């Protein structure tokens, strides 16, 4: 009953809200909100930003995380410290991360430009969050900084769960290191990869707090993500119907991406 009230009722209600339109004579059923999606440039741009951002950040996080996990899975000195220090960014609340990076990236007083200046690099044009391209790179970099450790951790757990036997067999068959990685490690790591890609994709598509703190979607519209636009529509402009409509489109797209992942990674296993 509680579950029904807390989760199902709001969901159903948001569907009705997205399909209703307030008119002078009362509330009418209509597809206005969904039609508006097709003509809304802000919505389209924010969607494109969100997907470019998600793909870029996910790629970096996955490649880095996998490399670190493989490295850390070997017997090297000091790997305990290495692992522990890698986890620090992940433990910070995203809001804190946003504030810290906002300070670091300040073009005039920030530590990053300060350091570069000490090294004799001209920082006049490195305005980070004030220039559209650099701001987009900056928000990607911050997410990579914070969430690569998570990818690393899951993949490392996956690596350590792989038994030794297949490796010994591969060694006996005389396979090269690349062949071992390609035909032994990767297939056995698939469940971990699936989990990490799924979780990160969902998180990236609904990213909100660190960007809200870091750039608020700016400069201009350069780092506006769909979740920020939905928030603004609902709570700044008080248009719940349109915000609900956008949320459903985002939900549908996230679902499609998830299904594609699961299909892709499962069929390959057979």
């Amino acid at each position, binding site marked *: 009953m509680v579950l029904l009230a807390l989760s199902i009722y*709001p969901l159903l209600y948001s569907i009705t809200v997205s399909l209703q339109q307030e008119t002078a004579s009362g509330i009418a059923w209509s597809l206005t909100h969904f039609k508006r999606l097709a003509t809304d440039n802000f919505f389209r741009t924010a969607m494109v930003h969100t997907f470019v951002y998600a793909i870029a950040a996910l790629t970096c996080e996955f490649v880095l995380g996998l490399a670190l996990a493989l490295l850390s899975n070997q017997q090297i000195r000091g790997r305990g410290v290495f692992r522990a220090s890698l986890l620090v960014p992940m433990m910070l609340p995203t809001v804190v991360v946003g504030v810290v990076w906002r300070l670091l990236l300040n073009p*005039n007083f920030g530590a990053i430009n300060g350091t570069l200046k000490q090294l004799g690099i001209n920082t006049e044009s490195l305005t980070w969050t*004030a*220039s*559209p391209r650099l701001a987009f790179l900056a928000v990607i970099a911050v997410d990579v900084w914070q969430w690569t450790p998570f990818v690393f951790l899951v993949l490392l757990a996956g690596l350590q769960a792989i038994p030794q036997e297949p490796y010994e067999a591969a060694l006996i068959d005389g396979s090269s290191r690349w062949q071992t990685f390609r035909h032994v490690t990767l297939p056995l790591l698939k469940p971990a990869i699936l989990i990490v890609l799924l979780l990160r994709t969902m998180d990236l598509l609904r990213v909100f707090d660190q960007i809200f703190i870091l*750039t*608020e979607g*700016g400069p201009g519209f350069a780092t506006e993500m769909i979740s920020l636009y939905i928030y603004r529509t609902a709570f*700044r*402009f008080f248009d719940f119907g349109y915000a609900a409509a956008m949320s459903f489109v985002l939900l549908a797209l996230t679902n499609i991406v998830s299904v594609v992942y699961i299909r892709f990674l499962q069929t390959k296993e057979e």
Partner: protein
Amino acid sequence: MRLTILLILLALVPVWICACTKPNSKPQLTLALVEGVEGEAFKQAARDYEAQTGVHINFAQFPYQSLFEKELIDLNAQSGAYDLIMLDDPWFPRFAGNQFLTDLTPLLQKRGQTGPDADFVEASLNVCRHPYQTGALYALPYVGNSQLFFYRKDLFAKHGLKEPSTWNEVLAAAKTIQEKEQGANGGKMYGYVMRAAQGNASVADFMPIFWAFGAEMFDANRKPAVNSPEGIAALEFMLELGKVSPPGYASFNADEVSAHLLQDTAAMSINWPAWISAFSDPARSKVIGKIEFATLPGARKPGQAEIGNWLIAIPRYSANAEAAMDFLLWATTAEQMKRSALRGNPPTRKSLFQDAELVAKFPAYPAQFRSLSTSRPRPRTPQWNEIENAFGIFLSKANSGELSPSEAMNQANAEIEKILQRAQ
């Protein structure tokens, strides 16, 4: 719509519980306040009133951004949770236009007054009326903020410059100072500094230039007209000012602008009175006694500041409108408003701007009074939040070099037109 809002309101239950417990013989009032110095002064006044009269007063205090949400949710749901609300004047057209507020004139008449006290600054009373200036009175002004022009009088004197009365003089002075001066620690001294982050920041810093150049957001037929030749010229001028502003200003907010002035790395800016006290605080300011406060420069038209008053209104569904009105009138008397002024809030009464004790404590009062008296509000429309957001995005895009001034204004105009059409 109402049901969803009720659900959201469930989250607010803790706030009301105090408002709904044990009915008393004395009426109880619940106030919705903003955090920070403006809300604190009003809260203090409420405590004094409680001690004097025994009327129990409850507080619901929120940060600026969420105050708007909470109030609009309450007003929409007609729950009557609040008996008095503090509101920023740009929210007023939306609240009053939706018939969410109590008309104060009948309540004044019951108390033998024909209208609000003539001591209130007209510009401040105008924003309390719907429609603007001429309509019914739905609020009283409590904090009389309006923009000021801040400049470094020591540097102006050093280079033989006089107080700028036009934007062209501002630009010329900024170029001179940037060329000849060094900032703190041998760094660069910038002639000007402004906010051009999308949203409220860029719009607030641009409107005085926009108006001075003779541009208007809406033409006589209420059609958007930001892409008029005057509007484009104003944006071109803003980009000129950007060349003498610190790099990265396209993402600046109030904090960064004030930091540059306080740290002795910029010479001029538009700013709000709330920052004045920071400039004489040795812990924060490297420029104590070097900043002068003036009214805004003009161009084709005399300079006009944007008004940013805090108003107090009684929601239409408050069950205690009479008691709320008694308190509202008491809190806005000259005597009580002076207490609020001493706590750091600019008043909205003419007599207080001339009060000797206050002027001695706040030397910028004469400039603040001139600025407030000639100020004008942001364009009055219930869709202001949405329009400001869209307009700010295109201003920021122009300032970060993504769009040319005419492209930015054309696209902004088209977007504002869409917003207005949707609202019809």
